[in-house]
């Protein structure tokens, strides 16, 4: 199994190497990067490229590690017991399998996505050490041990809101998706809009990278915002000339709201443009 990127996901060579290392050595891969650089998408595309099922586990601040393994549905059992249901005698009827359990019991490997692991409690990654390392865990209620027959490919994303514990990091491969440079960005756009007008793309990319250079922006526009913006430009059928005023005067590009999503940023940008216009 080797991952070579897909026809709608552009992976840089170093990202491909990291993914392949994780596949070959069967260790989890931790992905970090600016928001909107395609961290979550990576897992979906790896699953698609290798033709494996994808099991997703989206983490929230209230998520507990146990929920990924299994949950004991005590409330249903309590209700059933009051109703005198026969099911109640077997506790196994009330064990709800989590994402990891589902992946472990598969006979063919799968891809597990643990999305935004940093959202959870600080102890969350520590609680999953053994489960991700040995790929096994114990179910206390039914006294059975679940062991992975086929080690799944585990992809974990983080937005860096919390620092992850060292013991956890040591068991993972790590890759930081850096912001794509112009040629990579061109490839990414080509993948999404195969028949975009070349002149429009050139102008748009220029505006985009210039916008990223504007000092003091709270949230720089990222890849996903660029894609949205291009979609809008195409839908509105805006000519490439509109992106640059004729006499090289500074203008606010059309539909800039798709790129700058923060009120302060939009305001700051407009002010800068106005200043530039006055200077000329």
């Amino acid at each position, binding site marked *: 199994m080797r991952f070579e990127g897909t026809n709608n996901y552009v992976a840089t060579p170093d990202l491909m190497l*990291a993914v392949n290392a994780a596949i070959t050595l069967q260790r989890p891969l931790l992905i970090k990067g600016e928001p909107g650089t395609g961290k979550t998408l990576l897992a979906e595309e790896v699953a698609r490229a290798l033709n494996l099922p994808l099991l997703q586990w989206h983490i929230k601040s209230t998520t507990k590690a146990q929920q990924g393994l299994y949950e004991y549905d005590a409330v249903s059992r309590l209700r059933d017991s009051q109703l005198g249901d026969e099911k109640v005698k077997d506790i196994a009827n009330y064990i709800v399998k989590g994402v990891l359990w589902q992946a472990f019991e598969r006979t063919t490997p799968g891809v597990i996505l643990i999305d935004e692991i940093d959202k959870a409690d600080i102890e969350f990654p520590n609680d999953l050490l053994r489960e991700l390392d040995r790929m096994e865990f114990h179910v206390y209620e039914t006294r059975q041990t679940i062991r992975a027959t086929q080690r799944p490919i585990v992809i974990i994303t983080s937005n860096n809101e919390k620092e*992850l514990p060292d013991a956890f990091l040591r068991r993972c491969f790590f890759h930081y998706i850096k912001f794509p440079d112009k040629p990579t960005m061109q490839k990414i756009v080509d993948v999404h809009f195969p028949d975009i007008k070349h002149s429009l793309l050139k102008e748009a990319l220029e505006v985009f990278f210039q916008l990223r250079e504007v000092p003091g922006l709270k949230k720089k526009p990222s890849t996903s915002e660029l894609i949205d913006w291009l979609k809008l430009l195409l839908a509105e059928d805006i000519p490439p000339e509109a992106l640059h005023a004729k006499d090289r005067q500074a203008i606010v590009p059309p539909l800039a709201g798709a790129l700058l999503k923060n009120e302060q940023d939009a305001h700051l940008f407009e002010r800068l443009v106005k200043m530039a216009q006055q200077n000329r």
Partner: protein
Amino acid sequence: MLIDFFQHLKMRKLAVSTREFLTLLEALQSGLANHSLDDFYVLSRTCLVKDETQYDKFDRAFSEYFKGVENLPGWGGVDGQQIPEEWLKAMSMKHLSPEDKAKLEKLGWDKLMEEFRKRLEEQKGRHEGGNKWIGTGGTSPYGNNGQHPEGIRIGGKSAGNRTAIKVWETREFRNLDDTIELGTRNIKIALRRLRRFAREGAAEELDLDNTITGTARNAGWLDIKMRPERHNKVKVLLFLDVGGSMDDHIKVCEELFSAAKSEFKHLEYFYFHNCIYDFVWRDNHRRQSERFSLLDLMHKYGPDYKVVVVGDATMSPYEVMQPGGSVEYNNAEAGAVWLSRLQETWPHAVWLNPEPQRLWDYRQSIDLIRTIFRNRMYPLTLEGLERGMRELNK
């Protein structure tokens, strides 16, 4: 040979562990690196470095260790296609005026290269064939780069071995190094270390586990148990120096302040000038009329408050040691007395200093205050902030 490499990384203060090193060897054994230095660089980074803030350090250590290697035959050699960064630097210094250099220093290396390329093109036009650097015909690196402006982003373009060497030598991750950059978001993340959740207040949440246990004990009759919700209960007192010498650090203090304000529910802030004495104030414009006595604050806010003092601690030593030394008013007791009193009331206290740490030893007052604060003074960088927050959490 690789053990030396591992030792070298350790020596350069990278947090690499034996386990990760073994993983790297395992990965190499399974043929992932394809015998090229390029792949080896990415693979070792993937295996050994788990934090993008450490990427720059790793790049430096890697290039240090492999400095000699890339010149060996078989590693690409000197073919004129790629030029070491140092060359470009030396050359750009030759071609750009000092003002340009200062201006470009701010723009970053990519811009510099682009600007430099333009210069070279100009030169080429004027001297037909260029000076000796450009004149080597078809193999000239600038000829190539000139045609493709993107080509200047060294690395990742051609498949040769030498490109990888460029990748680490460009040090693209310099900005992620945690000793340098400090933005609001980064500060927030550092401040999150202080979070401490606890259940306090009215019982409004259903405690399921306890309800089940209770019901089981009750022989099946429902016994509902409630509990209070979880809150971040950390309480913070922030003291900010607004003295003249702090003017250089206004931006970083503002960032810290805005991050802290949104991060903590219980945050009280006060201003002082140079050193803390009997009075602090809340509004800088009315500092003479609206003062808060520090003694009152000590009675009002309990010892569970954590104290963060932000100041450059740069002043005359008299302002710390002598009664009446304050520049604001005539203080009856010396600053040192108040500072130790503050620490007695609030045992969890740190001093954050925006001045670079290397200057601390040269300023008498910084040294004094650091001693009074029992060494709990940290630089106002991301790394210092984290250490400070860890200290506060003890």
